[in-house]
């Protein structure tokens, strides 16, 4: 891969419930499945795109949050995440 892409995943230090709660607290990052659009998206893979892997050998960490970063102004996106993280 020649450069960084637009996807970011991170494990919320405060665990699964905090990960789910922050996913629902952003305003610019829309809570939705899919990725790769001009608009930023946030999702909780364990309960959304990867629910089918729960209890399997490739189960996703329930504290993981996935971001698809769009082309809005970076400062607006950072402010949105800071607010959602509390």
């Amino acid at each position: 891969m020649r450069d960084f892409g637009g996807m970011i995943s991170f494990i919320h230090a405060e665990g699964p419930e905090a990960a789910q709660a922050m996913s629902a607290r952003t305003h610019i990052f829309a809570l939705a499945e899919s990725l790769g659009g001009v608009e930023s998206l946030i999702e909780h893979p364990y309960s959304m795109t990867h629910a089918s892997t729960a209890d399997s050998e490739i189960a996703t960490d329930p504290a993981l949050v996935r971001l698809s970063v769009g082309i809005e102004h970076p400062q607006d996106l950072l402010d949105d995440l800071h607010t959602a993280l509390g």
Partner: protein
Amino acid sequence: MPHQPETLAVHAGTEPEATSGAIMTPIFQTSTYVQSAPAVHKGYEYSRTDNPTRTALQTALAQLEGARFGLAFASGMAAIDTLTRLLKPGDHVIAANDVYGGTYRLFERVVARYGITFSWVDTTDPARVRAALRPETRFIWLETPTNPGLRLADIAAIADLKPAGVQLVVDNTFASPILQQPLALGADIVMHSTTKYLGGHSDVVGGASCSMMRKPTRPSSFCKTRWARSLGLWIAS
């Protein structure tokens, strides 16, 4: 001289329309094509198999991936499902142990019912891929970066260790051909959910597979099974 990806992304597959010079590819809203004599036609017989609007997209996708051909599907999952039709009972697949949930569900809950087995392997380490190889292995299935963990695999290293008869398939949805061209690194087939970066606007659902094979006819089932899943023309446009 080959064009750069940015130029291809705008121009590949598009030619001025023959009758009017329209710069954008029209939506050829037709199911069938008039033949001048039985089996004598201009390359188009029936729109489930081929349609000029879909051809334009397939040509663009193939050029962006440096492939000889591309096929456009109704979704990324339709592309993946069709690729699994290259497998037969008894075959074995090595798959990345961090993949899209829909891929996992299709493989383990549908394809596995037909006697095909899967090993879920940490593909960030080529040695683990090598250790998982069996005589009946037919596919090595990579996502790189993986979904959702964003782990990377060394496509070239895995291509180098793969025995003859094993096809290296790379889901390139997360990188897009702008950041990574798996075929140039030794992969045999690259596939996409074109809903994502290739679409770019969250307004269409589509899929694609591209290969260095000269024609999408080997084995013939590959072509036949995709025929019922071809991308709709309004979306292809």
